[in-house]
């Protein structure tokens, strides 16, 4: 996989390949984990990101390696595209010692600071103010890195979201608020929980630039994130990006989706960002059909190799409970 260090911006062709590679890798991982859960190979759950890969790819490709990312339980795609090693990611999902937190954190709580992933939260909205703090630290350190935070449409109804937006705006910090609007929060459609047409309009309350973009178009996301990070790096403050997308597999793996109108799901699946982008790249001559297939196979192989490595690693020993709790365990109850 190409790295996302952007000393000099790559040419359009290179970006297209990078975006497509990231998308296929994220989809391959999601697919393989769901398959393993469905056939009883893995006794875990995930919150599938299938359908939302264009956002993660655009974001991951536009950010620098040292830029920070905060994401959620539905953020495996974000983390893959930011460069979290597959072994660490899958290892944590499967609760093995190969995992990013040796099985202590789990899918909802993955951290990989080496590539800028400082926090993953299972509490909806909780990551938003934390990203503000990451950006504040960047400013205090004199760094021009930015902090991106991913969250869903539903998260924009939390107090944490509004407080974080206000603070970032007041302090003009380099935060990119990335709303992955998949039109549902668990089983509830967006229109039942907010009286606004566009999540992007929430930026108006904070005199912050806010844009609604096609979250199924990786280039649109790439472009928007690039502009937002430019603004952030040069002292222009935060940006809210509403990336409209869809989740194909429901809220959690195995969700029967009784709440989902079938025609809405099939329309969304017909606009699947992966075949759509493949088609576009092939049409533009960036990729041949054979290369596209090769990339997809390569992604699946990479995921399988990571799974093999993870399963070869031991499960966590109870002695894990005695380490990495407090730095100093003196006086701490057993």
């Amino acid at each position, binding site marked *: 996989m190409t790295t996302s260090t952007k000393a000099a911006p790559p040419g359009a062709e290179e970006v297209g390949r990078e975006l497509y590679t990231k998308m296929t890798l994220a989809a391959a991982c999601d697919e393989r984990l769901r398959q393993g859960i469905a056939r009883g190979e893995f006794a875990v759950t995930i919150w599938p990101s299938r359908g939302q890969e264009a956002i993660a790819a655009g974001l991951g490709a536009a950010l620098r390696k040292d830029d920070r990312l905060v994401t959620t339980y539905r953020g495996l795609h974000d983390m893959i595209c930011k460069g979290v090693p597959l072994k660490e990611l899958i290892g944590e999902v499967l609760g093995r010692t190969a995992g990013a937190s040796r099985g202590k954190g789990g899918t909802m709580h993955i951290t990989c600071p080496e590539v800028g992933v400082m926090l993953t939260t299972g509490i909806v909205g909780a990551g938003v103010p934390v990203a503000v703090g990451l950006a504040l630290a960047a400013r205090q350190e004199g760094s021009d890195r930015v902090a991106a935070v991913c969250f869903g449409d539903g998260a924009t109804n939390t107090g944490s979201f509004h407080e974080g937006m206000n603070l970032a705006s007041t302090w003009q910090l380099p935060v990119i608020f990335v709303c992955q609007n998949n039109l549902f929060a668990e089983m509830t459609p967006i229109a039942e929980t907010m009286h606004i047409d566009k999540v992007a309009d929430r930026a108006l309350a904070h005199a912050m630039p806010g844009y609604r973009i096609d979250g199924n178009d990786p280039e649109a996301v790439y472009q928007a994130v690039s502009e937002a990070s430019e603004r952030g790096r040069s002292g222009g403050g935060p940006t809210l990006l509403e990336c409209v997308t869809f989740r194909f597999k429901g809220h959690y793996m195995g969700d029967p989706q009784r*709440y989902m109108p079938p025609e809405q799901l099939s329309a969304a699946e017909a606009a699947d960002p992966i075949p759509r982008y493949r088609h576009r790249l092939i049409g533009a001559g960036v990729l041949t059909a054979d290369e596209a297939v090769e990339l997809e196979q390569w992604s699946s192989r990479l995921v399988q190799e990571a799974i093999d490595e993870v399963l070869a690693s031991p499960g966590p020993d109870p002695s894990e409970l005695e380490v990495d709790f407090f730095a100093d365990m003196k006086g701490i109850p057993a």
Partner: protein
Amino acid sequence: MTVTADTSTMTMAGAINEALDEALSADPRVFLLGEDLADPAGGVSGVTSGLSTKHGRERVLDTPISEAAIAGAAIGAALEGRIPVAEIMIMDFITIALDQIVNIAAKARFMSSGRTGCPITVRTASFGGLGSGATHSQSLEAWFMHVPGIKVIVPSTPADAKGLLTACIFDPDPCLFLETVALYGARGEVPSGTHVVELGKADIKRPGRDVTIVCYGRAVIDALQAADQLAGEGIEAEVVDLRTLVPLDVETIMESIGRTRRAVMAHYAVEYAGAGAEIAAQISSKMFGRLDAPVRRVGARFRPIPSARELEAAVFPSTERIAAAARETARYFI
């Protein structure tokens, strides 16, 4: 306890649903609010299934992901004499609603010198034991015991769940009703029609002469299994299900221990500074000189709850750990 002749077998989830249904039918002031409550979702665990269809969406309100507003709106309506039943989906999320519950609901009657009351019920659920990790598995009931002004209720059987929830809903003061997801599917006989279990009355779930296991919630199930095991070894354990932590049935606890002279506290919440600490302290001072063994406690270890199954199991109590503590206590000789 009002027991009518008719009973039917149902799950804990079904019994809670029935209590809510009957309360909605009995009093037009009763209403429910929370995330994903309305049909077709009917709650993330299906507990409120069918209620919005039967009673209407004006009385079964789907809310945004806004826990502070869920609690606050319930409190406001309660100050006006309505009877709200708020749901906080998973207990870990109650952290976001704490200001409202702790600083307003718990103090409303006292601070207004009785000019307003706050008859809210907050239903929430502990998701421990499902491998969901540190932010989706906690049992925080001791926090609420520590705040003067809130009743704290934890049922262990379907019948108790129905009777206690009904009592909470029509209680003039704020009640925290803690459900246990691992018990939602447990079946039992439940009285049909209005069924009220008085708050503050413990229930001896199994009589025994050798040692008293004081417990509540999920630990009751383990304690009963432990008592079965111990019976095979000639030890007769009495299982006292507290059912309500505030108000606390001190009389039943002390009466039982007066007979057995030996006591074990068991709960799934963290042992350190948990509910058992308060009760053990009361036992020690009230029964000083009449105990034949030190009071023992079994609870979760003092750790964030890890995600990997083998680590999670090492943190939570179990039938074996409760049986071991009761055995040692029963065989303790000074």
